[in-house]
C-alpha cells in the first residue's frame, strides 16, 4: 500500500522558519569571514588606500587649494576617496562571495549542511546576505573615514555623500551577485575569483574600447558615457566618484547596477537549487 502522499508540491513559499534558517546560515558565514584571514587582508587593503589618500593630501595640500570654479574641497575629497571604491568593492566581492558557494563543494561541507531539513534557497539567501553585509559594512566604514578626514581638512563633508553611497551600495549588490554566480557555476574558488575579475574589469574595458572606435563622436565626458554606455558596469560605477564633482542623473547608473546584480543573482539561484552532487 502506498503511504498517504504529502499534498505539498515543490514548495517555493518562504516561511518564518525559512527566515530563521537563513539567519543561521548568514551568521555562520559571517563567523567564517571574521575568523578567517580574508577579513584581515581586506581591512589592510582598505587601510592602505586610506593611508595613501591621507598621505597624498599631507604632502600635496595645494591640490585642494588650487581648485577653482564650482568644485568644493570636500567634493574633491569625496571624488578622490570614491575613485578607489569600485576596486575595493570588487576585492570584497571576490574575497567573500566568489568562494561562498564553491567552497561548500571544494571542502565537502555540503554533505553536512545540504542533507539537513533546509531549503537550498535559505542557504543561498543566507550566504548572499552575509556577503552583501560584510562588503556593505566595509563600504560604510570607508565613507565614515572619508567623512572624518574631510571634516578635519575642510571643516565640512560633501553634500553628495548620500548620492555616492547610494550608487556604491548598488555596486556592492552588482559585484556580490556576479561573484555569487561564478561561485555557483565553477568548481574551484580560484577560478570563480578570476572569472569575477575578468568580467568586471576586462570585459567592460574591452567593450568600451571597441565602442570608442566605432563611435565617431566618442567622448570621455561622464555625461556622454552615461548617456550612451550606461549599461556597461564600469561606466555605471564611475558615478560613485563623478557624482561628487558633476551634476549627474542617477537613474541610469542605478538601473544598470541593479540589472548587473539581479540577473546574475537570479541565474545563480536557479543553478544552485538545481545543482546535483
Amino acid at each position: 500500500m502506498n503511504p498517504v502522499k504529502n499534498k505539498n508540491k515543490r514548495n517555493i513559499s518562504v516561511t518564518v522558519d525559512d527566515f530563521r534558517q537563513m539567519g543561521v546560515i548568514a551568521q555562520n558565514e559571517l563567523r567564517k569571514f571574521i575568523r578567517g584571514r580574508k577579513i584581515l587582508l581586506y581591512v589592510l587593503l582598505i587601510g592602505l588606500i586610506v593611508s595613501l589618500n591621507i598621505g597624498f593630501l599631507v604632502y600635496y595640500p595645494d591640490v585642494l587649494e588650487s581648485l577653482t570654479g564650482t568644485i568644493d574641497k570636500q567634493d574633491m575629497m569625496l571624488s578622490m576617496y570614491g575613485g578607489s571604491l569600485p576596486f575595493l568593492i570588487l576585492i570584497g566581492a571576490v574575497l567573500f562571495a566568489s568562494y561562498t558557494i564553491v567552497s561548500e563543494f571544494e571542502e565537502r561541507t555540503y554533505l553536512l549542511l545540504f542533507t539537513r531539513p533546509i531549503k537550498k534557497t535559505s542557504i543561498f539567501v543566507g550566504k548572499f546576505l552575509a556577503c552583501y553585509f560584510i562588503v556593505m559594512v566595509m563600504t560604510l566604514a570607508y565613507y565614515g573615514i572619508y567623512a572624518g578626514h574631510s571634516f578635519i581638512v575642510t571643516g565640512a563633508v560633501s553634500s553628495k555623500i548620500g548620492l555616492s553611497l547610494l550608487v556604491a551600495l548598488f555596486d556592492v549588490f552588482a559585484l556580490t551577485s556576479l561573484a555569487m554566480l561564478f561561485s555557483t557555476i565553477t568548481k574551484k574558488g580560484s577560478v570563480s575569483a578570476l572569472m569575477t575579475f575578468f568580467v568586471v574589469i576586462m570585459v567592460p574595458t574591452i567593450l568600451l574600447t571597441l565602442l570608442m572606435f566605432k563611435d565617431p563622436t566618442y567622448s570621455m565626458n561622464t555625461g556622454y558615457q552615461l548617456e550612451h554606455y550606461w549599461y556597461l558596469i564600469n561606466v555605471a560605477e564611475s558615478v560613485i566618484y563623478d557624482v561628487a564633482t558633476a551634476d549627474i542623473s542617477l537613474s541610469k547608473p542605478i538601473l544598470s547596477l541593479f540589472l548587473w546584480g539581479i540577473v546574475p543573482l537570479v541565474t545563480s539561484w536557479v543553478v544552485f537549487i538545481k545543482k546535483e552532487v
Partner: protein
Amino acid sequence: MSLIGEPIEIYSLFKKYGSFSAVDDLTLKIKRNSFTGLLGPNGAGKSTTLKMLTHLINASSGEAYINGVDVTKDPKTALTGVGTVVETPEFYTYLTPEETFRLIGQVIGMSSESIAAETSSILETVKMTEWRDKKLGTFSKGMRQRIALGQAFLGDPGIIILDEPTSGLDPRGMAEMRQVLKNIRTGRDVTVLMSSHMLHEVSDLCDRVAILDHGKLVFEDTIDAVSSVSGARQIILKTIRPATEADVSKIAGLPGVMSASLYGGGIEMNVSSEHARNPDLFRLVGESNIGVYEMQEGASLESTYLSLVKGSR
C-alpha cells in the same frame, strides 16, 4: 507523519544518467527500529540511493517516502527528524564540535537549551568530550567521523542514514566507530539505514540486509534468513594467537568448507549447511593445531552476497 508503518519506503525509484540507470526501479521498505545494511558492489547504486533519500541528488522518477513524506517532492519536511552521515563529510574548520552542534541544532530548529543539553551527552557517546572546544581543523579523520556521527544524533532523530561511515578510517578508527554504531540503538527508538561494502561490518551491526546490484534490489531480509538463500553458514574461529595465511589454507582445505579468510585475528569460514553441524568438521578444526578456543556460528552473508552479485565486477 505517515499513516503507514515503515519509516522509509521507496517505490519504483530511478536515477538515470543518459541511458545508464544508476538506480533501476528500486522498491524497498526499511522496517521500523531495524538496523538495515545496504550492500552491493561498487556502482550498485547504494550511494546514489542514499543521496536521493537525503536530497543531494534528484530522482529521475519514482517516490521515496521518509515518515510518509515524499523526499522527491518536499525534502525539507521529509528530512525533518532524520540524522545523516553521507560519505565522509568535512566540517567548518573554524568551528569547534560544540559550535558545529549548535549550528546544526539551529538549522534543524532546536532551542539553545536542547542543543546544550544534547551536545554533552552526544559527545560522551562518541567519546569526544575532551575535544569539545578544539577547532575541528586539527582533528584526525577518525575524530571527524565520530563528530559526524554525533551531529546525526542531534534532535533525537527517528531515522539515521549512514553512507559508508567507516570508509577511509584506519583499523583503530573503524573499531571505535563500530563500537559507537553497535550502541546506536541503545535507549533510542531509531531506524538505521547504513550502506557499506564490508560484509563483516554488516553482519556485525545489522539485523536486516538489503543487497543491490546494477541499481536493482536483489535481496532483502533479516541477517538470519541469509543462510536459507545461500545454503551456507558462517563460522568464526577465535584463536589463542593471531591466525596466519597458512592457518587459513589448512581450514579452507577441510571437507565442507566453502571458503575461509582472516577475520579479526581469527578465521572466518563459510561452511555448507549440511556440514555446519557435522562433528567431524569440528574435530578436524581442533586437530588442525591453530589454537581455536571458541567458535561462533552465524548466517553466511558472504556466500549469499557472492551468489547474488556474481555477475558484477
